[in-house]
């Protein structure tokens, strides 16, 4: 009997469970892989039937990879007459690609700018949420605050409102304050939404740091602020980093507020990507290229975050 643990399943069960999980993982990845592949197709190949899935292959299911989607994503193009095309040779490889449609590149598209907006608003609101959230979380964790539980619950409850409902008064307020379609307005809004996540999550991390260290520091003559700054913060660093990534992902992914409260200057990528159009009809390769570029950072972050994922998605309720 020794060495046998009933919680160590038999190899057959492991093999069976493993294959099922892997099968599910493979199926779940198909849509994402398909989109990534579509980004490297020509518009004609992207809507071919039956679908083409052999990269560089010959025959019916094969297609030659091209950067057309990416070129179309980042540029605006216009059709030109044959005389013009004959007189003006292509400037670079990208120009070369669009020439096959009798077009020339006339400038950058708006995608770059929208992507930059996503970065500015994402990082701006993340910094603000984490900064304010850390302070508040520390206070909730260490001090007796009157009505703390109610306040905490109240902070959370604001996440229960449908975003459209929140957007109605915000729209009116921003119109009055001139914050419509501004970076500042979006940063404040996302901070307001994210702060509940930040406070709850950071509180759960700070709760996990033993108070003995701070008490020792206080006895050593540190002020409370110094103790917070020099003792608690370094220990909470991982928690703060994970919280930051969660806030960033929220702001990065957010759609409803962006579509209602921005039109151009501060518009982020999610409302923009679905509206990428080609010459008549949606330009699927360009959309797929945009989707790929947009999703890639989040995937990388998710992999970095995997240890704290559970805590993040449950507002610190499940700590593992």
């Amino acid at each position, binding site marked *: 009997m020794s060495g046998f643990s009933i919680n160590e399943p038999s190899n057959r069960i492991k093999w069976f469970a493993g294959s099922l999980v892997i099968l599910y993982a493979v199926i779940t990845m198909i849509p994402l892989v398909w989109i990534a592949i579509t980004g490297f197709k020509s518009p004609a190949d992207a809507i071919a039937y039956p679908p083409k899935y052999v990269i560089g292959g010959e025959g019916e299911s094969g297609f030659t990879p091209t950067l057309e989607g990416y070129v179309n994503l980042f540029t605006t193009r216009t059709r030109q007459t044959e005389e013009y095309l004959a007189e003006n040779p292509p400037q670079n490889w990208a120009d070369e690609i669009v020439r096959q449609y009798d077009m020339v590149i006339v400038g950058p598209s708006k995608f770059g700018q929208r992507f930059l907006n996503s970065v500015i608003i994402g990082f701006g609101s993340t910094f603000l949420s984490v900064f304010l959230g850390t302070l508040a979380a520390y206070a909730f964790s260490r001090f007796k605050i009157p009505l703390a539980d109610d306040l905490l619950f109240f902070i959370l409850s604001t996440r229960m409102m449908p975003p459209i409902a929140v957007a109605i008064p915000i729209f009116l307020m921003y119109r009055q304050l001139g914050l*419509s379609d501004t970076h500042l307005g979006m940063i404040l809004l996302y901070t307001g939404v994210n702060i509940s996540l930040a406070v709850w999550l950071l509180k759960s991390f700070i709760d996990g740091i033993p108070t003995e260290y701070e008490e020792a520091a206080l006895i050593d003559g540190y002020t409370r602020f110094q103790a917070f700054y020099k003792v608690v913060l370094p220990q909470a660093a991982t928690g703060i980093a994970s919280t930051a990534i969660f806030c960033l992902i929220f702001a990065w992914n957010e759609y409803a507020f962006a579509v209602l409260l921005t039109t151009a200057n501060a518009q982020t990528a999610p409302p923009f990507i679905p509206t990428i*159009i080609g010459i*008549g*009809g*949606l330009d699927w390769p360009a959309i797929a290229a945009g989707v790929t570029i947009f999703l890639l950072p989040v995937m990388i972050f998710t992999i970095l975050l995997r240890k704290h994922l559970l805590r993040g998605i449950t507002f610190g309720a499940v700590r593992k």
Partner: protein
Amino acid sequence: MTYFKLATASALALAAAGVSSTAQAEDLTLCWAAWDPANALVELSKDFEAQSGHTMNFEFVPWPNFADRMLNELNSGGKLCDLLIGDSQWIGGGAENGHYVKLNDFFDAEGISMDDFAPATVYAYSTWPKGTPNYYALPAMGDANGWFYRKDWFDRDDIKAAYKEATGSDLREPQSQKEMLQIAQFFQGREIDGKTVYGAAIFTERGSEGITMGVTSALYPWGFKYENTPGSYDMEGAVNSAEAVEALEFYKEFYKTATPPGYTNSYMGESLDAFKSGQVAMAMNWFAFFPGLYADPNTGGDKIDFFVNPPQNQAGSTLGGQGISVVAYSDKQDAALEYIKWFSDPGVQAKWWELGGYSAHNSVLEDPGFVESQPFAGDFLDAMAGVQDFWQEPAYAELLLAMQKRVHDYVVADQGTAQEALDKLIEDWTEVFEDEGKL
């Protein structure tokens, strides 16, 4: 009043700029939908940049989001657009809510006369209240919903013979709505060159205005009226008249029996896709796309021809098109007005048509060479002679959304009857007009 403010503002601007009499070079932004004519406008505007020294920026929004985004922009008092080529139905709201600058004084001062533009376009794109000489836009782009078809298929002897055998009549450009349906049904599911093709691509889009624009293309030829007496808002018996019911049933039959599978939510882009990919024999779409379609290397040229929305009980086409307005929230209204003045010039208008924009200027439309200048030019004149537009009330969005819902529920989602759909539509519209205090 607005003009007075403008004058003061410009006086201040001049004072600030010192004694210089030339206006300061501005960065102007023009907002419009993202489609073929917009690209033509970019090309055209280069002349303006060269002449005026101002720089033109463009914000083009895809059609499905155009109304949403631009009305949101106007309603939030945004300064994104100095010039807006807004859809014809927005004029009421644009005027009443103060989004658009009233242009009368400017027209008078600059000698721009609305008599120089086609009356139907001035009525539809510029005036509020309708038909009064109060102008909030300059007609920029005439447009109507029309049709195009695969001329190469229609001309093939085997297909002609098959059609004759199937229907007993000759295959030709349809002369009525019902003939058009017959032709579409004939092509539906037919094998041509080893490929299954379908009858026609029509508008069924739910989200913005698509299906309403499609359905009205059947409603108007049947004699649909919004009101019994114009301006009275008495819709009972007009909106749900026997003709209207028949037309709506017709559109549903068309959708069910003569359109490619999967076109449950299709608008301009999908219609173009269906045609260019060789899936359909006919398609409806705005005249604005016709230059691009004619130039298409695969399905353009001698493979395509165009026809005006066929009559049934009467002639009638759904109006598209837009006027160009100056946004009241813009800080650069003087430069924006300069653009409008430049744009109204007959020479510029002629070039506009040449590049693929539909000028509404009489000097262009009445030119003896106009009809021959493009294969669809004559059809365009016919269409504009019989256009009708949706409500242009300030509450147009509510009216449109109600119609989108009722019509889509009936045609695509198979709910209720045509009579019920139109009855409910009257209820919805009545409620809106009651809220407006007009009933």
